Each structure stands twice: as structure tokens, then as C-alpha cells.
């Protein structure tokens, strides 16, 4: 099999003893690569009941056959571990040059187990692992950490780093690389629990592909299509374009999902931000779309600054918290990047605290008073407290599920999470397939693992569709996301394909030489979804976890019985028993 190394690297801490483990071609074909491969390695390596913040929890970073081949957007790493936020599978992807260094390291994936005695940096130099001291890097943000390490080690190294949030165990801390975050489910806290401030990788041993000329031609064609109208939204305005439209159709979560529209939406719309504040547009490593838009804001210091802003950050730190001040939202986005933490969970947990105040639940005994909805200054102060895990931030750094369990007083009723992961920016009231997708997603409420909103926001699904049709749409969306995550292709590229699995199979054959069909890839994608569910079962999943927060099941229009029918239809569609996979 070409396009891969056929082995992964197991690094055992504290000594950084490293061993290459062979990867059978069947395993690679079954999992495709990327998210599928990371999930399989995690499934094989993580013992049942492993403490997410303990030494036994593996931290897996995987590349894919497509990475480093010139296929646009494919330079992504997939990260997997047992999530300290959900207790279930934690997995995340981010695009960066690190993916190319990882692919060039001589291994298709790296899995780290154990824990360092002192804060350290794991250096993997062309496949050889060693530890370097990391204490001097504590307190630095991810960008500063990366710059310091590249200065120390040399420019050939690419760095994944955690910020202060990861050092201090914020359960939704992220792993940052090249300014992008593997953000959801707290893999940064797992890295911090291993006392790894950073992972620096250098490698240039890219494996040869099966058909270089054929692949180059196919990759050029895909690049051309990546510049077409199907991706114009992302290239021109970025994901912030969602906000005004979502507000118009009533699916913009605001004030902790109490509403689906926001009176301040115009002030923070993507179109308005672009007109007033656009500073620059960037692309991830090896990407021709270039969806990353940066916006100007006035920093607390009084200086002008600019920060990357995505829709999910915009909604979570904006409408969800009732904040309509663009400067405050951009400062908050910068704070999340600086501390290295997931903006969706940070905003979702703060919104829970704001609702506590609204409902008269006093959080002062838990570290400090909660702010009112719309109090931008207090939101910014809370983000600092969360990042440093002090005052009320110590509680909110646990996420909304644990915070609500700690506080009690009925506050679980407005903790907007699934399996402990805060909901993304799609109000599911009007989105039946998305509601189901969020309920059953293995990593919790996630728009990237279940992009079922696509069925709702199209003519593919009638509002009167039966439960089995809704389930089929949710399954198809979940499988498509798993396919893209395993190929490590950007989801923004999906509409550039006429037949994603069919065309991806052609690319896969050109890269690997394996005679893989579109159906083979679809089976592998579905297998990756089932691997995640198997992992969750091992960690204590029960059917009642495949649900939505009570607020969304109040009969307007979803109620518990209706969701139950949808979830049952999902299991039928997947061909798995309700009690779990045998």
C-alpha cells in the first residue's frame, strides 16, 4: 500500500521510549486514515475505565494517506483520546503544517501514553522521540510556545501546544497548532495531564504515492473546483456568514438557547463585521479555499489587534450570551485562543451561569457571582478566570454538565449539552435531523461529526418526513463527516464534489494503489462511526445518553417520545441494537 508508512509510533512516557507498531494494510483500508485511524488506535489502546486525565489515557495524533500529496485541504491532523469533558470519545481535527511534519516523521500516527515527571516537550525528530524540559514554557500561550520552540529547535519543526487552560486542566482545553485548534472535547487537558506543554515534530520522509502523475492531474482538478461558487461563502465571508441567515430563519441560539433569534444580530453579523472590521484572509496549510477571516478589534490595552473569528465562536460568545458588542466578542475569541480553549464550550458554560443568575441561583458560594446576559465585560472577566481556573472559573472550567451537577438547584435543566459537550450554534427546534444527529453523536453535541443540518437546510428532507427518513438523513450526514474526517479533507470542500465517495475513491486509489470503491469508503466511514460507539460502550455509554437537554424536549416541537422514536429509527438504520453493539 502506497501513500502511507504502514506503522504508527507508540511513545511511552516518562522516558519517551518509542516503538514503531506495524499497521496492517487491512486496518488502514478499513479505517481510511485520519479520524478513523485515530479512533481505531484509541479503541485498541485505551483500557476500559481509564481515567481521562490519568496516564493510561492515550493521546493519539493521526495523519492520512491524503496528507502531503498535494490534495487541497488534506493537511490535517486527527486527535483522539478519552475526553475529560464527556468521559466518552474525544476527537478533534485541525489543519496545520504539523500534519505534514507528522506524515513526514515515518509514522502514520503517534500515540502517547504515560505521564512525564516534570513539564516537558515531546520532540519527535524524523521518527526518533526524546523529551526536553518544558517548565520554562509554562504560562505561555500556544503561539508563544510554538515560537519559542521553533527558535530553540529550528524552523524545520512544527509544534502542537497547549495554553494555560491545558496546563490547568480546563476540561475543554484545546491543542493548538499554527493558530488552529483541535478544539472540542478537551484533548488539550489530556495533553496537560501528561505534563506535555508541547509536541514538536520534524519530518520530511513522505511516502511515495501509487500514481504520481494521475494524482497530480486529479488534485489540480479538485483545486480548480475548490475555487468555484460552491466554496465562495467560506472564501469570501467565512463561516461568520451563517449568523444573519440563521437569525432570519430562527435557528440562531441566543440567551442559552432560550431563543432562536437575537435582537443584536445585525451588529455582529458576518456581513457587518466584514464591512467594518475585516483585516485579512488566511488559508490553512495546503488549502486553496482560504476560509480563515481575521477581524480588527480594540484590545484591552487600547491597541488595535486582529483575530480569527468563526461562526461558532461568534455565536457562542455573542448571541448565546446575549452579547452584541463586536469588540467584546473579538476580544473573547482572542482570549480563547490565548488560553487554548474551546470557544463553544466556554460560551455555553458562561451562558449556563448567566441563566443561573437570571433564575436566582446564586453562584457566589462557588467562586463568585454570575453575570447577566449581555454583560460583555463580565463575560471577558470570566473567560480569564476560566483559563486560569480561579474564582468562578474553576467551576466553569469543568463544563456546564459538571457545573450543574455541582450547583444543583435544578440548574441541570438549562445546562445545554449532550454527553457533557455543549451544543454548537444550530438551534435544533426547527432542525429535526440535526436534533437527532446531536443526540446520537458519539462525541456529544457536535456539528462537525453530525452535519445533519444540511438535510434540514435543503430540499432533501420534507418537514413531514417520517422518523426513518430523518434517521437516514442523520446517518448519511454522520457517515459523510466520518469520511471527510478520515480522508482529512475539509468539510468546506464537500460541495465541490459531484459524488464525494466516488471521487474520493478515485483519489484514494491514485494515492494508495488499493482497489477501493465508493462503497468500500462508505463502509469504512460507517465503521469509523461504529468504532466511536464501541469506544463509548467500553467507557459506560447507555442509551439514555443519546438524548437532548430538557429545554429542547418541551414539546415545541420535540418532546421526549418523539426524540425517542427518532433515536430508535437511528439504531434501526445503523443496524445496531438499542442496548449497544455486540
Amino acid at each position, binding site marked *: 500500500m502506497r501513500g502511507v508508512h504502514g506503522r504508527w509510533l507508540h511513545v511511552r512516557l516518562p522516558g519517551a521510549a518509542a516503538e514503531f507498531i506495524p499497521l496492517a494494510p487491512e486496518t488502514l483500508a478499513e479505517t481510511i486514515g485520519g479520524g478513523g485511524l485515530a479512533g481505531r488506535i484509541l479503541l485498541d489502546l485505551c483500557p476500559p475505565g481509564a481515567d481521562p486525565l490519568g496516564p493510561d489515557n492515550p493521546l493519539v495524533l493521526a495523519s492520512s494517506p491524503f496528507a502531503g500529496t498535494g490534495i487541497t485541504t488534506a493537511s490535517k491532523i486527527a486527535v483522539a483520546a478519552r475526553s475529560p469533558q464527556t468521559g466518552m470519545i474525544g476527537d478533534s481535527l485541525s489543519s496545520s503544517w504539523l500534519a505534514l511534519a507528522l506524515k513526514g516523521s515515518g509514522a502514520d500516527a503517534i500515540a502517547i501514553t504515560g505521564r512525564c515527571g516534570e513539564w516537558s516537550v515531546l520532540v519527535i525528530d524524523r521518527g526518533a522521540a526524546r523529551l526536553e524540559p518544558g517548565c520554562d514554557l509554562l504560562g505561555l500561550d500556544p503561539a508563544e510556545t510554538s515560537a519559542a520552540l521553533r527558535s530553540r529547535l529550528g524552523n524545520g519543526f512544527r509544534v502542537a501546544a497547549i495554553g494555560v487552560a491545558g496546563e490547568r486542566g480546563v476540561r475543554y482545553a484545546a491543542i493548538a497548532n499554527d493558530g488552529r485548534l483541535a478544539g472540542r472535547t478537551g484533548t488539550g487537558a489530556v495533553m496537560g495531564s501528561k505534563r506535555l506543554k508541547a509536541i514538536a515534530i520534524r519530518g520530511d520522509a513522505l511516502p511515495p504515492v501509487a500514481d504520481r502523475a494521475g494524482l497530480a492531474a486529479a488534485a489540480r482538478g479538485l483545486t480548480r473546483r*475548490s*475555487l468555484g461558487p460552491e466554496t465562495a461563502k467560506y472564501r469570501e465571508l467565512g463561516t461568520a456568514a*451563517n449568523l444573519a441567515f440563521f437569525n432570519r430563519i430562527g435557528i440562531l441560539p441566543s440567551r442559552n438557547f432560550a431563543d432562536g433569534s437575537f435582537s443584536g444580530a445585525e451588529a455582529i453579523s458576518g456581513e457587518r463585521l466584514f464591512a467594518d472590521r475585516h483585516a485579512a484572509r488566511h488559508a490553512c496549510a495546503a488549502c486553496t479555499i482560504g476560509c480563515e477571516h481575521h477581524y480588527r478589534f480594540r484590545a484591552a490595552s487600547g491597541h488595535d489587534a486582529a483575530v480569527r473569528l468563526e461562526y461558532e465562536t461568534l455565536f457562542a460568545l455573542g448571541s448565546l450570551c446575549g452579547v452584541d458588542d463586536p469588540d467584546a466578542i473579538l476580544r473573547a475569541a482572542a482570549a480563547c485562543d490565548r488560553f487554548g480553549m474551546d470557544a463553544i464550550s466556554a460560551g455555553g458554560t458562561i451562558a449556563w451561569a448567566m441563566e443561573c443568575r437570571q433564575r436566582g441561583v446564586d453562584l457566589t458560594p462557588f467562586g463568585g457571582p454570575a453575570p447577566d446576559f449581555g454583560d460583555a465585560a463580565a463575560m471577558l472577566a470570566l473567560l480569564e478566570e476560566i483559563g486560569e481556573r480561579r474564582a468562578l472559573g474553576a467551576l466553569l472550567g469543568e463544563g456546564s454538565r459538571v457545573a450543574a451537577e455541582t450547583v444543583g438547584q435544578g440548574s441541570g435543566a438549562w445546562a445545554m449539552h449532550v454527553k457533557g459537550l455543549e451544543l454548537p450554534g444550530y438551534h435544533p427546534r426547527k432542525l429535526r435531523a440535526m436534533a437527532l444527529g446531536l443526540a446520537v453523536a458519539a462525541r456529544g453535541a457536535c456539528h462537525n461529526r453530525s452535519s445533519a443540518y444540511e438535510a434540514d437546510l435543503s430540499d432533501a428532507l420534507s418537514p413531514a418526513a417520517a422518523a426513518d427518513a430523518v434517521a437516514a438523513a442523520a446517518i448519511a450526514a454522520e457517515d459523510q463527516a466520518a469520511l471527510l474526517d478520515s480522508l482529512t479533507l475539509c468539510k468546506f470542500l464537500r460541495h465541490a464534489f459531484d459524488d464525494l465517495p466516488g471521487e474520493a475513491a478515485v483519489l484514494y486509489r491514485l494515492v494508495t494503489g488499493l482497489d477501493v470503491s465508493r462503497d468500500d469508503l462508505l463502509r469504512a466511514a460507517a465503521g469509523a462511526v461504529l468504532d466511536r460507539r464501541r469506544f463509548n460502550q467500553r467507557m459506560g455509554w447507555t442509551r439514555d445518553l443519546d438524548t437532548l437537554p430538557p429545554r429542547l424536549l418541551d414539546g415545541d416541537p420535540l418532546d421526549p417520545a418523539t426524540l425517542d422514536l427518532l433515536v430508535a429509527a437511528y439504531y434501526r438504520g445503523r443496524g445496531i441494537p438499542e442496548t449497544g453493539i455486540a
Partner: protein
Amino acid sequence: MWTLHPGVIRVNPSAKIASATAPSLDLAYPSAMTSPNPPAAPTVTVECFGVPRMLAGAAVPCAGDTLAEIARDLGRHAPALLGTVVDPAAGWLLPGYVFVIDSAFTRDPGATIHPGCAVLLVASAAGG
């Protein structure tokens, strides 16, 4: 005028950034509203989002009994959409864009329009 990146249409990207910050771009009052040739009998106002909104403004009044007629009229009254959102030859939406009529997403040119219905124009790539 706000322009698109190369790949969609041929423009100087640096000009785009400069013009994007110019005060002449007013999202609330689209150029089509002040067009010298407003439709004689507008039946609906097309609400634009994302790229269409940056090019044509937030709302464009259009006349037509079907979506095909609305799309053609849209091109007439918001020419900035031609070649980027509306195919000038076909008079219909380019791939990547979709109408929403009274909450239903559609690219059916034959879909009928009744006065007063809500017609939205948005990228078909939902979410992100």
C-alpha cells in the same frame, strides 16, 4: 463595490479589502433599492445573505410569478450578482446558491411565487 476573490471572478483581492472598508458599502440600503430602473410591479423582496448581500445589498425588490422569473429580474436589478451568483446566460442561480421560499429551500425554477411571500437568497453550503 465589493468584489469576489479570484476563482469566482477575476478581481484584484487587495482592491476588495480596501473597498470593503469603504463607507459606501451600506448593508441596510442596497444599491438595488436606488436603481434607476426599479421593477414596475415588484411582487416580492428578495432578502440576500452572505455573498449575495455583500454584492447586492440586504434586499432587492423583484417581480415574477416563478422563481425563474425572479432570478432573471434579480440579475436585472442587481447586476453585481451576474456571473457570481446568477448565471447571466441562463438567468438562473449558479451552483452554490439556493432560494428559500417561506422556509422551504429550493432550486426549482418553476416554484411559484405569491405576493408577500418571503424569498431569501443564500449559499447552499449550509453551516460551517
